[in-house]
């Protein structure tokens, strides 16, 4: 058998992933033409490279169709129910850092904390007749976070992109999104709530607990981990 390693198929995340592996003696590269989504692994036997969209890697890990995969820790936590039972974090990779945060209009001088947000949501619902809308694509993580902190009277509205613009466009009152520098938030007149981020995300190498691992695969994994100085 062969150990399938899923990596992001394009962009900075792919480049950084290739770099990370090459620093540890394993060379990943695209096969053939620039646009072909298949790859080559040098430096270790028995590993096959699978090029995937980063957002599909959690699902593929959970389905056991790949043995290992590189994706954001935020995506794994948001997309997979009971993620700890399905995947194992082999290594945080030290790039792709971003915080999942909650942001509100800067003009809300009365709101800086989760307490404030909760109080504002209660009054908002009473006045407008619907729950305060928070635009996000991280439904699971945000819902769990609000539940743990006892925030009520809100609703999540789905936003798969340009989330920072939803407040100005009146489709949401606040947002929950990934940010690294906060630049886009400021440009859209939003401020980050004064609390711990919902999640501090970074690119992470995961092992699938759901994939079929033959003895041979396990030996390959052990060898790979030894080369990279990781616990398998």
């Amino acid at each position, binding site marked *: 058998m062969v150990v399938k390693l899923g990596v992001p198929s394009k962009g900075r995340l792919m480049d950084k992933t290739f770099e990370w592996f090459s620093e540890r003696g394993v060379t990943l590269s695209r096969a053939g033409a620039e646009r072909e989504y298949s790859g080559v692994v040098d430096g270790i036997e028995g590993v096959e490279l699978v090029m995937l969209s980063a957002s599909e890697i959690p699902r593929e890990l959970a389905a056991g169709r790949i043995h290992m995969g590189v994706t954001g820790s935020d995506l794994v936590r948001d997309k997979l*129910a*009971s993620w700890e039972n399905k995947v194992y974090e082999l290594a945080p990779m030290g790039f792709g850092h971003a915080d999942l945060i909650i942001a509100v*209009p*800067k*003009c*809300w*001088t*009365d*709101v*800086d904390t989760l*307490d*404030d947000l*909760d*109080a*504002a949501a*209660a*009054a*908002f619902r009473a*006045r*407008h007749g*619907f*729950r*305060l809308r928070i635009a996000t694509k991280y*439904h*699971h993580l945000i*819902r769990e976070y*609000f*539940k*743990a*902190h*006892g*925030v*009520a*009277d*809100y*609703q*999540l509205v789905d936003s798969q992109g340009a989330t920072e613009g939803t*407040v*100005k466009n*009146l489709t949401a*009152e606040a947002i929950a999104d990934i940010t690294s520098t906060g630049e886009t938030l400021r440009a*859209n*007149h939003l401020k980050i709530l004064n609390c711990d981020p919902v999640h501090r995300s970074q690119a992470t190498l995961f092992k699938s607990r759901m994939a079929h691992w033959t003895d041979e695969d396990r030996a390959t994994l052990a060898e790979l981990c030894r080369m990279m100085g990781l616990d398998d």
Partner: protein
Amino acid sequence: MSRPEITKAAVKAEAARLKALFEAQGALPVEMDILLPAEVLLDLYGEDIRARAYVTDDPEHGEMMLRPDFTVPMVQQHMSDGAEPARYTYAGEVFRKQEDMPSRASEYFQVGYEVFDGSDPAAADAEVFANFAEALAEHDLRAATGDIGILKAAVAGLNTTETRRAALLRHIWRPRRFRALMTRFSAAGTGLRQQNLDRVRANLKEGEAPFIGLRTQTEIDMRIKALEEDASAPPIPASEIELLEDILSLKETLPHVLSQLRDIAVDLPAISDAVNLLSRRTEALGKRGVDVENLVFEASYGRTSMEYYDGFVFGFYAEARPDLPPVATGGRYDALTAVLGQGRSIPAVGGVIRPNVLLSLKGGA
């Protein structure tokens, strides 16, 4: 111990048996849709229900939900064409995602018994509990009871501002936030309340940010005014916080709880009506043959489950099988009928039994 597989046919037969029991007690059998408009349920239960229910799209009717419980369609059906007093029973599937407990079924049967009768709430509460106790009598189950109405009365009787009482009432169902609010409104929170106000005043000085979004300046101003009031209002007296703590930690047999609540009511007279109701309910339960001397009452019971139980709450549990969900749960939900009735409220109390759980007890016994 090997447990035989429980077939859907067996569950259906058990559900029919329980439903027939309730019919024999005078309940009218009713049927309800499985596919429900999602909007009402989402507005009522919020994101919690979205996480737990299956939502799907209909090109014509928008978001639809697979029936997560019978309460909402039951109340709607009664409000549109029911006459009072009314007693109903139903049996059917409900659908719940089990993200936290994937081993539990996401499609299962419930058999319900609901009473819409405002003439004697204590008697109606006792009737529902006693009928459930009787239907489940052959199993060795632990019964739990509580009363959210006592908590609400205690909070409503606190000697403090209306805003603070409303904030506490709103979070009765979220114990962690409730506790944080209690601290903030107490003497220990005086510094924190001043800090909150100072922080907002500092924001105001920072200068204008362009106005965006639907939330208006009036709403922001009102909240700042509320923070000012909260900073200057005296803290909730330590003695009252202590009384509230005493109530929240009550967990004893009904007669003991009643006598303790009567003591507390001397210092917190606002709970007197609720305690009298508990007393009348206890009497009514006794009349129906329930062993109230040994029935446990837990003041915090039901606080973390459904937000719309606002009076008597109860549950039946198989102590020997902690892996199973409760066999039956129920309670009074007047507040829910008020929300659905847009001002028109109907006193309502009821509950559901899970026939598959009963069958696993029989199989595992």
